[in-house]
């Protein structure tokens, strides 16, 4: 097991390097250079050739590409992405400020998706081809192809504009601090409802279909027949014998789900003005704030890399049938 962990960690190194190369390439593919971008940002302010040369030196742009890559890599190791062109604050501070909001949304969404999809998938599989299974399957299939930004619009139209019962904008009301403890958190939860629903239904549909599929595979195996033959109640068979085995592939899937969730939060955070890293990324893209765009791309791919690592290690830990030496 220890060798497996070490080997898996060693695999991270080339991938991590690759991520830095891709990020660096994207910056350097840009037509012109970042200094020109700053000039464009400041309303085409005229910069004298002298000042331009100074700035080039400041950003190290007068050096050859590989030297620049190495210096950039050194700064990256300390999470120094430079300052935002837009707010002129360090990119890493901006990201850390915004991360909790995104995590709150994504964790809530993941928990809800799991809590609903596991029983749905199990029941569908146990009653394969029943009416429940068919109706459930059709609804989930449709949910899966519904574009989240459209659902967000429809929900805003229904709950925000027609019924006026849910806030459609931001994370808290302007005067939320005056609501008292319960009022404050109640207000926050109300703000979370619509974005969370939009972020959740897709992964919920995907997970249920997945749980159903892997349950169907497990349920045909001999040990399930044995469990039934020795007279266990059906619930016990399903929830303790079958379920534990379907959990294993689910662990790997969780790692793969994260990139989709993070991508989804860009669109949804932009729509709901949710102050997370997705909205920050969207605003930075629109403002052509290169340091922030690059910093966020790097951090988000790092998050994905780590989550696949955790999923793989959990898989190795949870499945005693596989040896990794």
């Amino acid at each position, binding site marked *: 097991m220890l060798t497996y962990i070490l080997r898996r960690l060693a695999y991270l190194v080339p991938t991590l390097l690759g991520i830095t*190369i891709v990020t660096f390439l994207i910056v350097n593919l840009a037509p012109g250079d970042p200094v020109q971008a700053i000039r464009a940002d400041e309303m085409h302010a005229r910069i004298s050739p002298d000042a331009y040369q100074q700035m080039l030196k400041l950003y190290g742009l007068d050096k050859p590409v590989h030297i620049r890559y190495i210096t950039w890599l050194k700064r990256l190791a300390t999470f120094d992405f430079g300052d935002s062109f837009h707010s002129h604050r360090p990119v890493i501070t901006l990201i850390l400020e915004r991360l909790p909001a995104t995590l709150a949304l994504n964790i809530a969404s993941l928990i809800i998706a799991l809590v609903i999809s596991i029983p749905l998938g199990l029941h569908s599989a146990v009653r394969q081809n029943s009416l429940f299974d068919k109706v459930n399957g059709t609804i989930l299939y449709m949910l899966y*192809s519904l574009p989240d930004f459209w659902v967000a*619009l429809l929900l805003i*139209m229904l709950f925000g504009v027609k019924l006026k019962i849910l806030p459609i904008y931001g994370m808290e009301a302007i005067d939320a601090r005056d609501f008292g403890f319960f009022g404050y958190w109640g207000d926050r939860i109300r703000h979370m409802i619509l974005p969370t629903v939009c972020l959740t239904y897709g992964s919920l549909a995907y997970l249920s279909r997945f749980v159903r599929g892997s349950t169907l595979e497990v349920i045909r195996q001999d040990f399930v027949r044995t469990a039934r033959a020795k007279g266990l109640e059906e619930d016990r068979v399903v929830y303790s014998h079958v379920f534990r085995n379907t959990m294993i592939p689910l662990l790997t899937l969780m790692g793969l789900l994260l990139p989709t969730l993070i991508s989804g939060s860009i*669109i949804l955070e932009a729509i709901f003005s949710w102050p997370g890293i997705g909205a920050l990324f969207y605003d930075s893209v629109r403002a052509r704030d290169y340091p922030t765009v690059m910093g966020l791309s790097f951090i988000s*791919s790092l998050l994905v890399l780590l989550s696949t690592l955790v999923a793989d290690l959990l898989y190795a830990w949870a499945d005693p049938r596989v040896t990794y030496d």
Partner: protein
Amino acid sequence: MDHQTEKDQQRTVAERHADARSGATSEFARTIWRRFRADKFGMAGLVIVAAMFVVSYLTPVIANNKPLIMRWNGKLYFPAVAELLPMRWFVDYPELFTVDFERVKHDPAVALLMPPFPYSPLASSLDDTFQPPSGRHLMGTDDLGRDVFTRMLYGTGISLKVGLLAVAISLVIGLSVGALAGFYGGVVDVVLSRVIEVVMCFPFLFLILAVIVFLPPSIYNIMIVIGITRWTSIARYTRGEFMKIKKQEFTEAARALGATDRKIIFRHILPNSLAPALVTATFGVANAILIEAALSFLGLGIQPPEPSWGEILSVGRRHIEIAWWLATFPGLAIFGTVTAYNLLGEGLRDATDPKLAHTARR
């Protein structure tokens, strides 16, 4: 030695092998088609997708502010018909360049026959802003008084084009990377697999948006960006197929007969490993259409006034209090198209992979 054998001997071994193979391939295609036809969901997807292609082709004669038939200075012209694709390359009416079609379309002496929806996707008409759906405007009008149904029709073509071309790009990249990694193995495989892993690590919208910041937004840049970022699953499937097939006997036989690597890859392995890549590509089209719509919705894709479903939705978002139709119909179209491509993809998957046929379908 009779005539037939002599002729047979003149043909090379490889030629005979190729004949046998192509016979087997068309037999395989027939089997797939037979299985696919039995799947009513897959067929529904195919019919919807085909219908959309027909509609997007015929768009200029369905919705247009130019007449189908018009009389101008005593001569007959067919300006709407002239916009259909093969005509567009040959027919050009320089004498009509100065005609204001928005005005003459109401003149029965000039416009002898108008298309069923006599609107332009671009020309605004400020007297008709925010009309709700009616017999005149099936899906209402937008903030500039343009007919939404007309814009939706023109948007269909854009969606289909982005979907197909983006996937064509990702197919080329994915097949090449997958084939090289799977066929050569060893160092090549290790390096290319890392590349695939790296690209997969970026949440896809982050990668797409990070590239888009640096490019002027245009339909071609959107296609290219989607294409160069969404090829990883095709590459992975192709790699797996190549690894499986290169160990099979007919590949060994081809090698023993002296076939070059290139010939083995293109004539023997590639045709046999195409099925999973094509299935993935079909899902990829759905995905590309969805991404284009999302980008245009966010204002980072197709730029107004160019009509696209995502762009109409974003207008709907700005006017969500007063115009429900703007936020409803484009979403339905995106949903329908994505579902149709997904059904088609699932039908193809079940038809090409008999093992999955009974377990994968709900």
